[in-house]
C-alpha cells in the first residue's frame, strides 16, 4: 500500500513533536543505568561478605540490569501515552479522518514507536551493562562470555516488548489514567508479589515481565525449576504482547472513535 510510508512519516512527526517522548524515554535510560551502576557498586563491596553459595549464583550480567525494574515503568508510560494521548486529546478523530484504514493507522503508529523504543532500549541495555561491569570491578562479566551478549540484547528486547505491551493495553482501554493505573501497580508490585510468594510462583512466572526477564539471566538461579529457557521466556512475553495488540486492534476496529 502506498499510504504506509506517508502514515509512517506522519506518526514520526507526531512522536517527535511532543515533549513526553523525550521525558519518558530519557527517564527510562537514566533510571535504568543509574540504578544499575549503584547496585553494582553495592554488590562489589558486598561480595566479600557473601556465602559461598551466593558467590556461586552471583550473576554480574543480570545484576547490572537491576535498574530495569524501575526504568521499565517509564517505558510503560511512554507506550501508554503514545497510544492513549490520541484518545484523551480527541486527536484520534482527526487522525482517523486522515487515515480511515484503521489497521494501517495502528500498524504504522506501533511500528514507529517500537522502532524508537528498540533503539533506545538496546542502547540503554548496552550502556547499563558496560557501566555496571565497570562498577563491579574484579567480579565483572565480559561481553564475550557465554550467554552474556544474548542477555544484553535481550535486555533491549525486553524494554521494547514492555513498551509494546503497554501500547496494546492502552489501545484497548483508551484512557491514559486507567491504563497507567492498571499497568504501573501490576508491574511494580503485583507481578513481584505473585512471583515471590511460593503459592503463586507457578502462575507468576508466566506473567509477561517475569517470563521476559529470564533472558537477562546468565548464571542459572540456585533453585531453578522454571520450565522455560531464556528464549522460551521471551516467547511467552511476545505471546502476551501479541494478545494485547490483537485486543487493541479489535477495539479500534469495532468501536466508534
Amino acid at each position, binding site marked *: 500500500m502506498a*499510504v504506509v510510508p*506517508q*502514515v509512517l*512519516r*506522519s*506518526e514520526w*512527526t*507526531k512522536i517527535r*513533536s*511532543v*515533549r*513526553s517522548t523525550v521525558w519518558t524515554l530519557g527517564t527510562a535510560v537514566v533510571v535504568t543505568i543509574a540504578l544499575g551502576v549503584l547496585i553494582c557498586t553495592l554488590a562489589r563491596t558486598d561480595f566479600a561478605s557473601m556465602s559461598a553459595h551466593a558467590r556461586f549464583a552471583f550473576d554480574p550480567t543480570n545484576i547490572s540490569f537491576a535498574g530495569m525494574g524501575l526504568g521499565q515503568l517509564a517505558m510503560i508510560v511512554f507506550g501508554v501515552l503514545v497510544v492513549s*494521548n490520541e484518545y484523551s*486529546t*480527541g*486527536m*484520534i*478523530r*482527526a*487522525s*482517523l*479522518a*486522515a*487515515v*480511515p*484504514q484503521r489497521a494501517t493507522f495502528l500498524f504504522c503508529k506501533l511500528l514507529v514507536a517500537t522502532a524508537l523504543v528498540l533503539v533506545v532500549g538496546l542502547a540503554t541495555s548496552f550502556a547499563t551493562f558496560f557501566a555496571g561491569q565497570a562498577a563491579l570491578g574484579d567480579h565483572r562479566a565480559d561481553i564475550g562470555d557465554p550467554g552474556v551478549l544474548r542477555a544484553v540484547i535481550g535486555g533491549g528486547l525486553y524494554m521494547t516488548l514492555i513498551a509494546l505491551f503497554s501500547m496494546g493495553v492502552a489501545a484497548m482501554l483508551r484512557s491514559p489514567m486507567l491504563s497507567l493505573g492498571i499497568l504501573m501497580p501490576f508491574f511494580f508490585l503485583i507481578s513481584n508479589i505473585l512471583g515471590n510468594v511460593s503459592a503463586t510462583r507457578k502462575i507468576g512466572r508466566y506473567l509477561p515481565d517475569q517470563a521476559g526477564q529470564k533472558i537477562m539471566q546468565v548464571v542459572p538461579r540456585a533453585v531453578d525449576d522454571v520450565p522455560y529457557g531464556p528464549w522460551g521466556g521471551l516467547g511467552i512475553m511476545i505471546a502476551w504482547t501479541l494478545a494485547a495488540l490483537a485486543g487493541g486492534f479489535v477495539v479500534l476496529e*469495532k468501536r*466508534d*472513535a
Partner: protein
Amino acid sequence: MIELQGLTKHYGDKVAVDHLTCTVRPGIVTGFLGPNGAGKSTTMRMMLDLDNPTEGTVRIDGRHYRRLRNPLTSIGALLDAKAIHGGRSAYHHLLCLAQSNGIPRARVDEVLDTVGLTSVAKKRTKGFSLGMGQRLGIAAALLGDPQVLLFDEPVNGLDPEGIHWIRHLMKDLAAQGRTVFVSSHLMSEMALTADHLIVIGQGRLMADTSMAAFIRENSRSYVRMRSPEQEQLRDLLHAEGITAVAVGDGSLEVDGVPAARLGEMAARGRVVLHELSPRQASLEEAFMQLTAASVEYHAHEDRRVAVRPPGPPPAGPPVQPEGWGADWDAHRRQRKGS
C-alpha cells in the same frame, strides 16, 4: 456531494439518528440545523466514518469514506476545535495530518496564513484560545484543498470578527463550487450563511428545503391587539369571519389579516384599542415550531404559549413547554453534566 441513505445510529435503546436520507449538493452552503442533542454531531461523525452506522450508508462523491485515497484531499472537516494535542505546535499538528495524506509541507504554511495563525504556528496549542483552536481546526479542514467541507458549529467561541470571517469563508468556498455543510443549533446564524437547509429533530429529517422557501413557509406574521373591551372586539372580528386568539396576558392575536384593516374595523365598530401591532415570528421560532410540532403532537396545541416572544409573564400559573421542548432541555443538561 454527500449522499446519506437511510442513515441510522442506535446507542443501546436510544435512537440518535433515524433513517436520515438526504443529499448535500455542491456550489451552495447547506445548513444542518437541529437543537442540541438532535443527532447533528453523530451524523457528521458517521459521514467521516468515525462512528459506525447501525444502518444505512454515507457516500462522499459516490464513494464510501474508507475507499477514499488520501481522504483529506476529498473532504475536510472541523469537528471539535479542542480535539488537538495541547503539547504539539500548530505547525506540527498540521504537518502530521498533511504527511499522512501526501500533502506537501508548503501547504501547511499556506493554510496557517489563510486562517491567520502564522505568528503562533510554532507555539504549543495548549495556550490557544477557543477562537484560535477553531481557526486551527479550519486550517486542518482546508489542508487538502478538498471539494467537500464539513463544519460542526464553526462559530462557537469566535469573536464577532471571527464570525464575520468564517461566514465569508464558507460562502467563498461554496462559490468556488465546493460542497459546504455547516451544522448549527442557531437558526439566526444559518439565516445569514446557508442557501439550503436540512433540519433534524431527534435524529429524524424535519425539512430539506431552500432557505428562501423555509422562510416563506415557516415565518408567521400576525397582529397583536389589545383592548379594554375585549369581548366586543372579538365579536366584531367574528362577525367579519376573523378568528382572534386570546393570549394569556389579555391581548388577542390575529393571523393573516393586515393591521390596517383590523384598525379600520375597530374604528367602525367604535371599539377602543390600546394596542395594534404587526408582529413577525422570528425564524428561530419557526425552527423551534417545526422541530417541536413534528415530534410531540400536543406541543403543537400549546404552540402559542411555547413559542411566544418574550414579554410580560402571563397571569396564572406559568405554562411550561411540555414534551419535546422540556425533554430537549433536560437532555442537553444531562449531556453537559456527563
